Structure formats: structure tokens, C-alpha cells
């Protein structure tokens, strides 16, 4: 079953065509990776899906619903969550609070309930804390829950971003270069984590430069170059694809193989 479908999607920034008539279908419960050299348009694709800006052309639909003109927070409520290429945590807040913010869209107490401290608000707050702690435990961050986000080690900050995204209870998770800046052992842990998330039923849409990670866990790979899709297929096919090797992968993968 197809969860997310991009049809004929283009994005123009002034004279620059960052994404050109892209078709991508992300199957439910699978790990699909989007790769390509720097500036290929990968982050732009994520930004369009999550409503940071609308596509110039084409349609983006999720489980049959068109997302094109929805505000970002509505899209998140529909079940798509994301992380950022450059870590964007709420730095002065604690680790737990960062995750609690992620639960905002699944909870209801408003200003009046907060002002009057109603039983509903109290119960909901407790539940927010509990669920957030569960999420932190799942991601192995529970011990750090009272630390300020800015004080976390780099790898933990990356994981906290994932935790915050997971806290929105998504069905699809967009990860934008989650392994960037990680050392090999952290990357290996991340790989396990992504598989673990997939096993809970999440669909994973991954943008990543680390080829070992991409080829190790993806069920399907889409290759972007200068905004064009130049290839699509299973990791093995992609590794052998002439165009891809020429555009980008070649030497690295060959050397490793």
C-alpha cells in the first residue's frame, strides 16, 4: 500500500529549479531512502511534504488526502513527523520538555484549563509526562530527561530530535541526514534504532549521505540529481546503476565492495 505519493512535483526558487517533476511513492511500513549529491533537492522535498513551502507544481498526497495547502502543524497531525538536517531542538528546555512539545498535537488542555488547573488538565499533564518518558526510554534517553537539551552530547541531540518527532505519534517519519556528524558506532546504533522504529509499524523516509547506512537498511532507494530522479530501485540495483555511479555513488561504493 502506498502511504505518501508525490506526483509530478516541482519546486522553483526564482530561477533555480530545485526539484523537477518528481514522482515518488513511499510504501507503508517500509524504509525508503532518498539520496543524491549536495544540493540535489532532498531537503526541499522534505520541506514540501511537511508544508514549509508549497510545491510550485504537482500534488503531494498522504493516505489519499492532498497535503498541498495544509499548514505544517496540520500535516504533522495527519501523521507525518520529521527531523532536521541541522539540529533544531528547543535548547533552553529540558530533554523531557522537548518531547512533551511533540505531544502537543495529541493533547487538548487549553489556556483556561491550565489557568484553573482542572482535573482534566492535571490528568492529561501526568499522561503527557508518562508517555514522554516512555518515548525517551524507547530512544535510550530516559536518564537524561532533566538535562537541558543544549547540554546533550551531539549524538544524543540527534536522537532527541527523533524522540520529539516520535512523540507526535506519526505513522511516517522523515529523517533528514540523521547520521550526519556521527561516529561509526553511533551510526550503527542509529541503524538499529531506525529498524526498531520501522518494526513498530512506522514508515521511514530517509535522506542520508552515509551509504553504508542507506544500503544496509533501505528496502527501496530513490536517487536525485539536480532535482531530477535518475534512478529508483532496491539498494543492489542502485549500486550497479550506471547513471548513479556516474552522478554520485560510484567510487565510494566500489571501493567499499
Amino acid at each position, binding site marked *: 500500500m502506498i502511504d505518501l505519493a508525490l506526483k509530478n512535483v516541482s519546486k522553483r526558487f526564482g530561477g533555480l529549479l530545485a526539484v523537477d517533476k518528481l514522482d515518488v511513492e513511499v510504501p507503508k511500513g517500509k524504509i525508503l531512502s532518498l539520496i543524491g549529491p549536495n544540493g540535489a533537492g532532498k531537503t526541499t522535498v522534505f520541506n514540501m511534504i511537511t508544508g514549509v513551502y508549497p510545491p510550485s507544481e504537482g500534488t503531494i498526497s498522504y493516505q489519499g488526502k492532498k497535503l498541498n495547502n495544509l499548514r505544517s502543524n496540520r500535516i504533522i497531525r495527519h501523521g507525518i513527523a520529521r527531523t532536521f538536517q541541522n539540529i533544531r531542538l528547543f535548547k*533552553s528546555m529540558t530533554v523531557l520538555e522537548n518531547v*512533551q512539545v511533540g505531544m502537543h498535537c495529541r493533547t487538548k*488542555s487549553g489556556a483556561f484549563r491550565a489557568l484553573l488547573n482542572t482535573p482534566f488538565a492535571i490528568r492529561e499533564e501526568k499522561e503527557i509526562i508518562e508517555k514522554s518518558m516512555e518515548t525517551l526510554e524507547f530512544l535510550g534517553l530516559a536518564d537524561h530527561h532533566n538535562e537541558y537539551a543544549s547540554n546533550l552530547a551531539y549524538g544524543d541531540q540527534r536522537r532527541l530530535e527523533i524522540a*520529539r518527532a516520535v512523540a507526535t505519534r506519526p505513522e511516517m517519519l522523515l529523517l533528514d541526514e540523521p547520521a550526519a556528524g556521527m561516529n561509526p558506532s553511533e551510526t550503527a546504533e542509529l541503524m538499529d534504532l531506525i529498524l526498531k522504529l520501522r518494526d513498530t509499524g512506522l514508515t521511514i523516509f530517509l535522506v542520508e549521505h552515509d551509504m553504508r547506512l542507506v544500503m544496509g537498511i533501505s528496502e527501496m532507494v530513490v536517487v536525485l540529481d539536480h532535482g531530477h530522479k535518475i534512478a529508483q530501485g532496491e539498494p543492489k540495483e542502485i549500486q550497479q546503476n550506471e547513471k548513479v555511479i556516474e552522478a554520485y555513488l560510484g567510487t565510494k561504493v566500489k571501493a567499499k565492495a
Partner: protein
Amino acid sequence: MKQGSEMGNGEFKKFIIYSLFLGVLILPMVGFPGTHFEAKRAFIVWGVFVGVLALGMLNQVVRQSSIYQKTLGGPQSFNRRVTKQFQKIPVRHWTLILLAAVAVYPLLANNYMVDVGITCLIYIVLGLGLNIVVGLAGLLDLGYIAFYAVGAYTYSLLNLHFGMSFWLCLPIGILLGAILGCVIGYPTLRMRGDYLAIVTMGFGEIIRLVLNNWDSLTKGPNGLLGMAKPSIMYPAFSNSGLEWATYSLKSLHALYYFILLIAVLTVIGVRRLDQSRIGRAWVAIREDEVAAELSGVPTTWLKLLAYAMGAAFASVAGAFFAAKLSYTNPNFFIFMESCIVLCIVVLGGAGSIPGVILAGVLLIAVPEVFRELQDYRMFAFGLAMAVMMVLRPEGLIPATRRKLGLSDIETDTIGELEESYQAVDSRT
């Protein structure tokens, strides 16, 4: 070593340029109260400014020097030690001591001092309200005093024309303030920084000008006179048995305790908001609006809510203010007032409730004490702000996000809420 002196040179150059600039600005402005140049006065003021500047620059140089970094800087610095000492005392104790002090204060003070106390409390309520907008949600608002005016005029007009009681006018004023907060907030939603500052300032002035010029309704600059004081009803025995008697809050002491109650409720309210789901979302917006929106926080709505909540508190303060004086006029709501409230928030520490309270007392009460120095009040104000920004840029009592206590994570079974989240699957 060489690097150090180069840096010192750079600072020195800046110092000379700034000093000259200040001279050009200050000398003519301060030196000509009338027609001839009063050199002494002008040079004293300029001298003080240059002195502060020198202190600031010196501070920079010293801080960057390697000796400072090794000794006073780092984790053991004076600032951090002060902050730590403050944090050691539990909040509960602070609160109790403070409450006891403010409760007995009017009994020990003369009328003038009680009056100053009332003014302080009004500004604390205003500061706490603005703290929601500026401190929590991170939105700059230079027209905040407009909502104070809305509260004051709502009560004045409704009371004078329809004889409505304070208690009836209060919710109406809150509602009007909140609506106006949204009206002003809406067009500014996409703005940031400087633009936001200018637009909110403009709105604040518009409100004042409307009040000033709508003669038929507001009596213009003459203002409105003769509003009733708030009164409370209580059951009392009389000749004809049990009936309701009214007690009008006329005396200074009664008014003091009334505004104290309002202030305490405001503290509780703002604190609850701060620690709620809503408060967290506000802080998230302040920290990174894009990330907040993309974590599912409806940022537009929450920013409007911040404006509305802030306006509501100001409106309460305004209604009290008008009732206390039985008088109001547009000149109470000049731009300078917005600045003072903003100073209270920034000086205290944006987002910090104890900080705002402390700064409210300092900025309102201390200038009263030095009443004779009237002319230099604003000057001292600016000086205090400048010194503070150099020494403690995060405010007197910097805001920190609350960490969980043990009692908060005690798990107990919660299932009842589940049904209200039908839209949500509970996979994670």
C-alpha cells in the same frame, strides 16, 4: 599577549567613537533646557554616560583576558555563584516570606508608601502579563500599555454610563482586551524583530490617540471622572434580620489588599500557564518557531493566544487603576509606559516570574524614593538598564525551565483519557 592588546585597542577605538557620538547627541539635548548652553549640566550627564561606557568596555576587555578566564570566569564566576545561592532556597520559602512581608507592609507604612506599594503591584501585574508575550512566547510588544488603557476605559465608560459594577465590567474588559490583543496580534503574525516592534508601538499609539480625540465618548484629554470604587457584598445582621451589606473598597488599605489579591492570582495564573502544555508550546515558539510548527504546534493560534492572555491581565490592571483613582485620561497610557513595563520584564529576566516581581519593585519603588531627583529619573532608569545589561544580560533572576521532581513521575494508572484521544493510535 599581542592578541590581547590588539583586542584592547579595538575596544578603545570603539570607546572613543561611541563617546564622541554620545557627546554630539547629549550635549545639545541636555545643554539647552532654555536658550543658553548650560555647560556644567551637559558635561556631567555626558561624563556619566561615558563612564558607563568605559565600564562596559573595560568589562569586555577584562572578561576576554586570559587571567580572568582562569580565575573569576568559568564555572565559579561571581554571577553564577550569586545565581546558585538564590536557587538554593526553595521557591516555597521565598513565596511565604514574600507574602508575609507584603501582607504586613501597609500596617507599617504611611499612606504615601502604601500608595507606592499599590503602584508597584499594578506594574507587577502588567509585567507578568507582558511576560507571557515577551518572556514566554518571545514576541516583542511595544504597545502593551494599550490594553491597560482598554481595561481602564472599559470600566470607566460602562460604570459612568450604565452604572455597571466593577465585577461585571471586569470580565467584559478582559474579553475586550483579549479580542483587541488578537486584532493587534493578527497582522503582526508574520513579522519579526524590528518590524514587530514598530507595528506594536504604532498600535499602542493609535489606541491612545483614539482615546484622546474621540471627545464625545472619552471626553478627550480631560479624561473621565467619578467612577465608583469596587465594592463587595457581605451578609450582615440588621434590624430587619439578615441582609446583604456593601463594603466599598475606598480606603487605601482596602485597595492595597485588593490589588495584592489580583497580583497573587496573576502570579498563580501565569505560573500555571508557564508550566502547562500551552506554556511549553510558547517557549518552543520562542526557541525555534519553525521547529515548533513542525513538531505539531499550531504556532499562529498560540501566538494570538499569547497576545490575548497578556492583554487580559493588562486589562484587569487597567480596570483596577481607573477604579482606584476614579479618574482616567489618555496621558496615563503614553509610549513611555509600555517601555517601563518592557524594562521590568527584560530587567527581571524574560520568562522569569520572580525576576519580574523583583524588577517591578525596583523600577517603580526606587525612583519614588529618590523623588527629589525627578529630573534625573529617566536618566537613572537608562543607567540602571545599561549597567544591568553589561553585568547580567539575562536579567536579575534568569528564567530556567522547571525540572521534574520525583513526585511528578510517580506513575499511576490513567486510562480514562484514552477514549478522548480516539483520533490517535497508541503505537508508540
